């Protein structure tokens, strides 16, 4: 063992001695052989020659001995890498170009994979997440497929179901925290005491709720702090445990601090227990319910158990629970929705293409270098370098370039992650958790190795196959490759063009779609508008709420620079809302309970002016009109057309909350449609109802300013303080910001895909330029002859560019086919743009042809400038 280690040491670090001894040994052998032959009467020259022939070459024998030596593999690889570094240093242009290309490809792929991992692959931060489920109430006969739970049904299902180890309820409440500086609006999660036990979450500090802390009669005034709130509000101080906070006038003692995590844990600033009440509401659907399947219970088993519970509940509470069903979904559905999923797959596919292009480009460059080095390689193999050794030499270069590129690519990805974090992407789950973790780095390592092997192997396998003599002869003359190599490089160009065309078309479709989305008629205006929330505590009765809203409206409208102000019960473009069944009173009820559905929104009189929604017919409310006294409504155009097509809807009657309240209301106005469920969804049917008289405690104030609204914010705060110093103004955002956030995913997609396509175009053009300038350089002599014989430079350009364009046009054809096939995958991400949008296809093809012509033009022009005489000499 010791001996072999010392041998290895000697082999690796005393190479000179070893080499000298080997040389001596073989030379002595040949000398002795020569002497032997001279002894038989041969002339010295003849004997020497015969001895060398018998020995089959001194250098070859030495190389064979070297290959069996211990440590030869290590030493060979080290030598290959050293050699590769040396050649790259001698060709900095090649090295920089190749490294940059790979860095772009690997960086983009790493970046997208890091998002992909955080959003889709990363396991939930909960114990045994495969047993976690979420359940919803449903009333299939009424057309409710998925609704939140009522509080009473949650307690009942929790008590009756045998399928679960436990179930927990979660709802959000707006509360004001007082007594710790300025009054502050908080989002407070109200959860049943078991909630965090079911998730399996360990607190960072203190404890989670005791499992009976939601029972009445116990001390129910513990609060758990959310991670972000703990940091921003209390500077992550551990001494917060045991302190008392006041929410909406009630005292809560801090019992613990929760870790960060999505979903649930990041959704609220603080959590308080939802206290059990036998008189809980059966009509208000506001609780998210999670549960942990008991060991050995499948989703199917839970479904049949829940069906039994439903029929029991329907018998017990026929008024509310007739036709009740419960829908169950595994926790794996908590992450990205189908749209985001397909968006991320598209992005991953796109960077895959980009990486392929970078690969092809690198292969192309290495092939060109291998061709230029044909002579060197031929001489090496003539001197006894084995085929493997030569393949390793070429692979060594790919390896060095690959890892330089990967390093730089990681830096790029790191920068890119910062950009993504800074972008307005709140809509994407787990996006805040993106980073370069072990999985992402491992992925980068694997793709780098794949790139190195794929792009290095083509030229490596090509290199030593040549007939030595022919290669030496050819290398002597032009140092250029043969026809088959030119064909191989053309094929690489074709594939590059095809791949980048597909990417460009994908990006083009998304850009057109995003442009349409941003310019779609959303039905309201966003410029110079801000929205802020005033949350009034539960101790305010309806009168006080009305007074506060009215006072704030009049106060703000008198501020300089304010053009309109109004309150509403919810913010626009949220993607969710509360709705009701609605029918026209003067028309027969629709058959089989197919009642139209409309959102409702409480507003004060100036809402339409503040939002920039056009009033089409009739009038808006006055400041004196109250909800239901008498029932008067303003409806969106969509509803008017649905109920009274071509007729005047003003003065007609509609039945609101059909099947629940059946309020008959008179239509006093019609306003324009707005896309309230997101810019890419259809306009929403909305029923507007006077705010006053609703007792709605969370008022969203829309302020329309003459100038930039940002300067108004301090005034808005001080105005509120003058009216009611205990109320905070919260969530101040511009309407533009809200709309931007609602298209965050699409923006990310579009920007990333466009960037990738741009990079792909540049890479493909580099490839085309490389191949073209190489083939033009080979034909310099021919061009010289043609010019000497009087050919028109224009015709020569057409001739050469024509040949150069052949693989490009072929690539465009293939790419168009590929794009037509693949763009169907994009269909779900497109808005008002067809996957086979002719304009995009034509524009992108033209773009490629034009840039390719440019890439052709430069080398041909250079060749045309060459003096014919010197061109001929080159041959």
């Amino acid at each position: 063992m010791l001996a072999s280690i010392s041998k290895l040491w000697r082999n690796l670090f005393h190479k000179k001695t070893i080499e000298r001894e080997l040389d001596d040994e073989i030379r002595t052998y040949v000398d002795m052989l020569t002497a032997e032959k001279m002894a038989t009467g041969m002339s010295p020259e003849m004997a020497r020659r015969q001895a060398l022939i018998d020995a089959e070459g001194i250098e070859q024998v030495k190389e064979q001995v070297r290959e069996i030596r211990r440590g030869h593999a290590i030493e060979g690889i080290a030598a290959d890498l050293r050699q590769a570094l040396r050649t790259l240093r001698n060709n900095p242009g090649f090295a920089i170009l190749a490294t940059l290309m790979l860095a772009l490809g690997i960086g983009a792929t790493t970046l997208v994979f890091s998002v992909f991992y955080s959003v889709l692959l990363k396991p939930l931060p909960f114990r045994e997440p495969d047993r976690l489920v979420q359940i919803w109430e449903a009333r299939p006969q009424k057309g409710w497929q998925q609704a939140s739970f009522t509080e009473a049904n949650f307690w009942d299902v929790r008590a009756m179901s045998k399928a679960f180890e436990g179930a927990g309820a979660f709802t959000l409440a707006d509360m004001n925290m007082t007594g710790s500086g300025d009054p502050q609006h908080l989002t407070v999660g109200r959860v049943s005491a078991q909630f965090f036990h079911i998730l399996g979450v360990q607190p960072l500090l203190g404890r989670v709720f005791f499992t009976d802390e939601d029972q009445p009669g116990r001390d129910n005034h513990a609060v758990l702090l959310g991670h972000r709130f703990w940091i921003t509000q209390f500077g992550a101080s551990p001494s917060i445990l045991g302190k008392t906070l006041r929410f909406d006038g009630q005292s809560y003692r801090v019992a613990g601090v929760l870790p960060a995590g999505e979903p649930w844990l990041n959704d609220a600033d603080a959590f308080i227990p939802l206290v059990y009440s036998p008189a809980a509401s059966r009509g208000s659907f506001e609780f998210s319910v999670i549960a942990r399947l008991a060991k050995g219970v499948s989703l199917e088993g839970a479904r049949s158990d829940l069906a039994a519970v439903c029929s029991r509940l329907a018998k017990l509470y026929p008024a509310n629970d007739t036709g009740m069903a419960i829908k169950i979904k595994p926790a794996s559905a908590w992450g990205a929705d189908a749209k985001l999923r397909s968006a991320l797959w598209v992005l991953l596919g796109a960077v895959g293409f980009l990486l392929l292009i970078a690969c092809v480009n690198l292969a192309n460059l290495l092939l060109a270098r291998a061709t230029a080095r044909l002579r060197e390689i031929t001489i090496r193999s003539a001197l006894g370098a084995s085929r493997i050794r030569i393949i390793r030499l070429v692979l060594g270069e790919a390896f060095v370039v690959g890892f330089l590129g990967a390093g730089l690519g990681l830096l790029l990805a790191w920068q890119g992650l910062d950009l993504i974090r800074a972008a307005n992407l709140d809509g994407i789950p787990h996006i805040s958790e993106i980073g370069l973790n072990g999985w992402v780095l491992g992925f980068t390592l694997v793709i780098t190795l794949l790139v190195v092997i794929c792009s290095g192997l083509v030229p490596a396998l090509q290199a030593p196959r040549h007939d030595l003599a022919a290669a030496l002869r050819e290398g002597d003359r032009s140092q250029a490759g043969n026809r088959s190599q030119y064909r191989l490089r053309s094929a690489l160009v074709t594939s590059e063009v095809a791949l980048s065309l597909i990417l460009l078309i994908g990006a083009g479709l998304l850009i057109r779609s995003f442009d349409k989305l941003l310019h779609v008629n959303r039905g309201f205006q966003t410029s110079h508008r801000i929205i802020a929330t005033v949350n009034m505590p539960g101790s305010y009765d309806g009168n006080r709420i009305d007074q506060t809203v009215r006072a704030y409206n009049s106060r703000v409208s008198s501020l300089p620079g304010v053009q309109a102000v109004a309150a509403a019960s919810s913010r626009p473009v949220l993607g969710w809302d509360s709705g009701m069944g609605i029918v026209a009173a003067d028309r027969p009820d629709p058959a089989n309970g197919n009642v139209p559905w409309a959102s409702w929104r409480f507003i004060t009189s100036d809402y339409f002016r503040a939002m920039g929604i056009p009033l089409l017919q009739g009038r808006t409310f006055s400041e004196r009109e109250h909800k239901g006294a008498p029932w008067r409504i303003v409806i969106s155009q969509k509803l008017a057309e649905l109920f009274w097509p071509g007729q005047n809807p003003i003065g007609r009657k509609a039945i609101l909350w059909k099947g629940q309240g059946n309020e008959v209301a008179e239509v006093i106005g019609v306003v324009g449609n707005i896309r309230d469920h997101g810019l890419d969804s259809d306009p929403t049917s909305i029923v507007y109802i006077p705010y006053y008289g609703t007792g709605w405690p969370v008022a969203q104030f829309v302020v329309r300013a003459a100038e930039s609204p940002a300067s108004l914010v301090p005034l808005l705060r001080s105005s509120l303080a003058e009216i009611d110093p205990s109320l905070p103004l919260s969530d101040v955002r511009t309407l533009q910001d809200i709309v931007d956030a609602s298209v965050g995913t699409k923006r990310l997609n579009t920007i990333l895909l466009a960037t990738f396509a741009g990079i792909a175009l540049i890479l493909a053009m580099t490839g085309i330029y490389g191949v073209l300038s190489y083939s033009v350089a080979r034909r310099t002599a021919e061009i010289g002859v043609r010019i000497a014989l009087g050919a028109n430079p224009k015709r020569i350009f057409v001739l050469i560019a024509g040949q150069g364009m052949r693989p490009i046009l072929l690539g465009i054809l293939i790419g168009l086919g590929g794009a037509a096939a693949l763009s169907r995958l994009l269909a779900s991400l497109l808005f008002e743009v067809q996957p086979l949008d002719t304009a995009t296809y034509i524009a992108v093809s033209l773009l490629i042809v034009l840039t390719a012509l440019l890439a052709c033009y430069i080398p041909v022009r250079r060749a045309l400038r060459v003096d014919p005489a010197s061109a001929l000499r080159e041959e």
Partner: protein
Amino acid sequence: MSPQPANLLQGTLDLLILKALVSEQRHGLGISRRIEQITNGTFQVKPGSLFPALHRMEEAGWLASSWGESENNRRAKFYQLTKAGRRQLETEQQEWGRISLAIASALKAT
């Protein structure tokens, strides 16, 4: 000089080299000539196989080498058997005996 040289069976070269070195230490050409001699000229070992084998066997610890003067006053590298080399020769000889017996009986079988 010799009849048709036969192809060396895999592994046979090691055995022949070990055998050639039993009596005394030899240099490369000496080993080559000794093998020719003891196989009655059936096996001629070319340096392309001889030297890799020598270096491999040296690394395996079967052979030791030293530099010395050849019969006609040249500085040459001499190889000699180590203890491990002698043991290896034993086992390879036994192995070879088994193989040749087996082959012989296989050829005799009808």
